[in-house]
């Protein structure tokens, strides 16, 4: 039985972890991911190299993984990462395109190009936490709790994972849209992993 041990939700104006708001942006402004990083007291200089999608996914994962007692050192071969979004890496694709669209000022940026792949966010979370199980990234037309539920359930079954970090990680137009859930095989009666509950946490 897979249960949602912890979850985080980052939207345009706040970050909520396990039901409590941990950060709100200033009036009218969209949430600033660097401010959120500092507020959460994380020390990981590589954060600043990431693109917005990776920053958002990383921050969504960081608190819930730490809270679950998982460290950043022990290789975790029985933990999978399964993420979804609808805009793929579009936010960074635009940034990369800006470095190559002007013939007169043509300097393709390697560090920006690296992030023009949606699944790098699974890579960044894996690198930080030494998570070495199966990792995958799916691009859907729109958020779908039923697809997320069935794909994650089958992945966990197929790989016999003991933990799965899964959910929605999207970023476009300066707006994060993240719902990350840490699933574990536990029976402590917390939130059951069902399509209905995924939907509840997202809305």
């Amino acid at each position: 039985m897979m249960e949602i041990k912890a979850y985080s939700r980052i939207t345009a104006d706040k970050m909520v972890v396990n039901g409590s708001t941990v950060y709100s942006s200033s009036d009218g402004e969209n949430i600033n991911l660097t401010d959120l990083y500092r507020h959460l007291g994380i020390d990981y200089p590589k954060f600043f190299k990431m693109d917005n999608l990776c920053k958002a996914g990383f921050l969504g994962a960081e608190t819930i993984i730490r809270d679950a007692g998982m460290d950043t050192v022990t290789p975790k071969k029985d933990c999978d990462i399964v993420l979804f979004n609808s805009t793929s890496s579009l936010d960074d694709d635009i940034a990369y395109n800006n470095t190559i669209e002007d013939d007169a000022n043509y300097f393709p940026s390697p560090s920006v190009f690296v992030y023009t792949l949606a699944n790098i966010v699974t890579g960044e979370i894996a690198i930080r936490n030494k998570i070495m199980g199966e990792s995958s990234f799916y691009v859907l037309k729109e958020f779908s709790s039923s697809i997320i539920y069935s794909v994650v359930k089958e992945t966990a079954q197929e790989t016999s994972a003991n933990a799965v970090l899964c959910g929605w990680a999207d970023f476009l137009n300066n707006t994060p849209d993240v719902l990350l859930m840490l699933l574990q095989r536990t029976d402590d009666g917390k939130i059951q992993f069902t399509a209905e509950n995924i939907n509840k946490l997202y809305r």
Partner: protein
Amino acid sequence: MTICVTGIGIISSIGVGRQATLDSLLTGRCNIAPIAHFKTIHSDLVSAEVVQSNEQLIELLGGGLKEPLTRTALLGMVALDQAYKEARVEEQRPQRVAFVSGTTVGGMDKSEQFYLDFLNNDSKNQYIASHDCGRCSEMIADYCGHFDIITTISTACSSAANAVIFGANLLKTGRTDMAIVGGSECITKFHLNGFNTLRILDKEPCRPFDASRAGLNLGEGAAYLVLESEASALKRGVEPLCKLSGYANFCDAHHQTASSEDGEGAFLAMSGALQNSGLQPEDIDYINAHGTGTVNNDLSEGIAISRLFSKRGIPPVSSTKSFTGHTTSASGSIEAVISILSIQHGFIPANLRFRNKIEELSFVPSSDIGLKVDVNNVLTNSFGFGGNDTTLIFSKYKKE
């Protein structure tokens, strides 16, 4: 459930279809040359382009196709059509058929061509919709007919291999009766320049597993495999080409684009696939390596192979990217098809242009062209950026 492959389709720089591909593999013929299909300042870089222009691809598909058409979609249609026909999907249609396709660039070849038009006028707006990866899969699927599930995997260079895993899982969980899986990708300025800024492209034809290797050559193409249960194949009266006997995906968790020094992700993927298949390392007759030809990958993957196989002897290893170039999102299925050809025709595809052993490795790749050998089990690797490492194992099909 025994998962069988009952149809394959392929198009790459070494040919259209299984026979042309086989001929190239058996004769050592490849087509790695400066870019011909679009204008680029990088006239000094060589790539493995598919010979046919878009117009010629449309002709191959019987003409009469409606725009918007993108190169990735056209390549995909050519490959899907072959697999679809070989497995006789139309004549003996199973109840539910899924299509799982991997791509990263989608319709980018047109988007980068018409980018300024998108900004300044409405004349090319139809190519905005065709840019999308998901739309690309739909366009490919629509060419052949009706599918009950169409989905897209986008995990960089492991996309097509992961599409195979996803399709297998759909079958095992009873969500479909047949899964046609693979990937398609064409070369675009976007990723040609991107890989170039990462300084991992070789100006010469690549030399995987060679001490002097200097990078990869980009390639393009598409390949699809038709997967179904043994029971389904027998019921439909279609002879399996081989079995998909094992697979696994693990994360290297080391760096966004580079592989770890001890090849841990690759090691986990290969051992995971072996465990999944119930086979032992000594059962593998041929390893079709990821073997991009970069300094980093070939060393890392080589070390992982040694770690896993040295005890009982390392089987022949080769990188067929020395033939096809690195076809990125399509590489997992293109190389799966090549692996299947090696089983069916009993030969080891060569690792071209090898001259000197990598000092740190204990083995050399197999460089004899068309080496005839009985091949029962093939292990093939596809590693994507983000440490996304996948291994597939295909085995000879023997009716019980």
